[in-house]
Structure formats: C-alpha cells, structure tokens
C-alpha cells in the first residue's frame, strides 16, 4: 500500500474510534454555509436586524415554537439545497479527509440533511440506528457538520466499534423488542461526541448512533451528508435518486464509453 503516514494514521483512528474530528479543511466554506443558512432562517422568521450567528442559532427556541420546528427544518433543507454551490461548499469543508477515507471518485448524497434539536424537545429524535440497517450502503461515510458547539446531550452519540461488535453478537436477543431496548442495553457504553463549530466529524455509520432529548440550554444545529465511492455497492438508496457523482474522473468516463471495434 502506498498510503502516506498521515493517511494511515487517519484511517487507523477512523477504524479504531469509529470517527474522526478535524478542523474544517476550508473554514471559509463552513462560514459561508452557516451564513447562508442564517439568511434563510431570518427570512423565514421575518427577522430584519443583524444577528450574532452563535447566539442566534443557540437560542432559536426563543424565536419559534416547537410545533413549527419541522416546517422550518423542511423549508431550510429545500432552500439551502437549492443554492447551486451549497453542496460544493459542504464537500470543500472536508474534502481532504473524505478522499483519504473513501477515495477520490465520489458520489455524494443529493440533499444535505439538517438537524435542529431544541432543548427538551422529544419530537425530533433519531432513535438508535445504524444507517446500514435502513438501506444505506456500508461503503459510505457520514460527514456531520455542527453549526454551533455541541456537547453532552446537545450532541449525537455513537457506540464505539468494540461495543458495537458485542451488540451485533447479541442481536438475536432483541427479536420482538424495540430500538429503545437496544438503547437501554448500550446506554452506558455510548460516546457523546464533543465538537465545536469550525470542526467536521466523519463517522462510521455502521456503528449504532442517534440522539436523545437535548437537556442542555442551547439548541443544536447540525448538517449531515453521505459520501461513497461511485463504483462501490449501493444498497436501497441508489445513484441518481439519492446520490450524484461529484468527482467522476476522465479515465472512468472514457472507460464507460469504450467500445471494441466491430469486425462484422
């Protein structure tokens, strides 16, 4: 293998911990992502004054009732994904790390997703799951970007690889039980991801993960998007409908168009 020391170290950390956290490769891209989002929120909420990004996002629960939250979330997902360069900004914020972990001929999730978790809200929870359990390819990684500092229950949790293997070995025990039973089983072994705005998290989505009621005083804002090698296996979510090629290389294009000469 011709991987560099840096590439090997990053891969080893990803494999052993199940995730990596690094400063965003392009902090300007990340700031542009956040500014775009804030512009969309202030338009939606008809707020005309300038806002301090951190303070505004962390305290959004003072501006919007919980029953309007999902409408805002869906509106923002559609709005930010309609900005032509938005996906590229997202990619640029973690490009180097994605290319080390996945490769350089990539398919990207077509719609970047957004999570908003206001304090004490139990309506936007993501029960414990692994993405592969719900139709995503085991050949992909998730790039998770916080738009505010995240810690404790304001963050997401992940079950470290060692405990994940133990859980997989005992899975038959959960027949006829619920995902909450799984959570109860792993609750003392999960790791809460502590991450600041300006950093990116890339995690192994095979590992059970999710969130719980945010018991902190601030709202969590984060975005997530999946990346995989174009030619690696897809599961239920396919090229075209869920993923799009973003860095198809010329040799592949030429290969896909190649035809042998016909002798007859």
């Amino acid at each position, binding site marked *: 293998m011709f991987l560099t020391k840096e590439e090997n170290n990053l891969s080893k950390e990803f494999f052993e911990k199940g995730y990596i956290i690094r400063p965003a490769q392009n902090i300007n891209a990340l700031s542009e992502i956040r500014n775009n989002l804030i512009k969309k929120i202030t338009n939606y909420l008809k707020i005309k004054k300038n806002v301090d990004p951190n303070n505004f996002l962390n305290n959004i629960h003072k501006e919007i009732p919980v029953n309007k939250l999902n409408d805002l979330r869906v509106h923002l997902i559609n709005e930010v994904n309609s900005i032509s360069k938005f996906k590229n900004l997202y990619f640029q914020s973690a490009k180097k790390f994605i290319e080390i972990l996945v490769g350089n001929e990539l398919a990207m999730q*077509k719609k970047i997703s957004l999570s908003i978790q206001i304090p004490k809200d139990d309506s936007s929870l993501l029960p414990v799951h692994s993405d592969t359990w719900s139709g995503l*390819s*085991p*050949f992909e990684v998730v790039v998770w970007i916080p738009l505010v500092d995240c810690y404790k229950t304001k963050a997401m949790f992940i079950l470290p690889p060692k405990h994940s293997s133990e859980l997989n070995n005992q899975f038959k025990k959960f027949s006829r039980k619920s995902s909450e039973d799984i959570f109860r089983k792993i609750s003392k072994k999960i790791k809460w991801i502590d991450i600041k705005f300006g950093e990116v998290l890339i995690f192994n989505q095979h590992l059970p993960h999710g969130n719980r009621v945010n018991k902190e005083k601030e709202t969590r804002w984060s975005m997530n998007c999946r990346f995989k090698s*174009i*030619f*690696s*296996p*897809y599961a239920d979510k*396919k*090229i*075209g*409908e869920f993923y*799009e*090629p973003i860095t*198809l290389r010329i040799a592949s*294009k030429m*290969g*896909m*168009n190649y035809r042998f000469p016909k002798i007859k």
Partner: protein
Amino acid sequence: MKKLRGYIFSRPFLGERVPQHIQNLVLREYCSRKKLQFLLSFVEYRFENSSLMLEKVLNELNRIDGIIFYSLFQMPQDDKERKVIYKKILGKKKEIHFAVEEIKMKDAESVEFVENIFLIKKTLPNCLSKF
C-alpha cells in the same frame, strides 16, 4: 404554466419496477411542486427495448413544453438513441424532467450530468455489488 407530457413504464427498467399508479403519483406531485401542468402519461409498451410511446411524445413536441419521465433510467439503453432524443427535445428548446431524480435537463452541462449517471448505472453490474 408549462405543459409537460408524462411518460411512465409498464416494464422494469435497469432492475427497478414501480407500479404505474405510483409513477403517476410521483409525476403529479413533482409537477404540482414545480408549478407545471401535468398532461396524462403515455405508458411505454411492455416489450423489451420499446420506445414507441416515447417516439409518439417526441412527435407532439410542437404542442407541449416538454416531457417528464418518472426516471432517467427509462430512457433508451442505447447510448446513440439517447443522444438523438436529447437533441430532438433540447434542439426545439423544450424541457426534459426526471421526477425521481429531480433533474431538469436544459443544456449541454445537464446532458453530461445525466449521461454520467446513466453510464454509471449501466457499469455498476460489472462492479462489486454484494456485501
């Protein structure tokens, strides 16, 4: 409001099979969201490689603003045939939409984008596919 002719399949396409009423639901919802007028779908014949219904839509292009496919993978598998279709539609300044993929084709760049996806899909059976 632009008028788009729906185009759906009565046979599987590149390994996918979707009931016709679901294909129509997706087209209708897409058109309503994009504020487009949805004209009753033409259903492609069931026999393999048929694009006779598609040809019929192409022949009425002067009376409509474009065509909306349920999926881009319902275009002919033959690479040359697809290019002729792009040329016929876009050459008349009409629109091609693919509802499931949420793609609107309008220029050379979008043709390349769609072709890349199509060729990747055709190549994938030759790649690692099980895990």
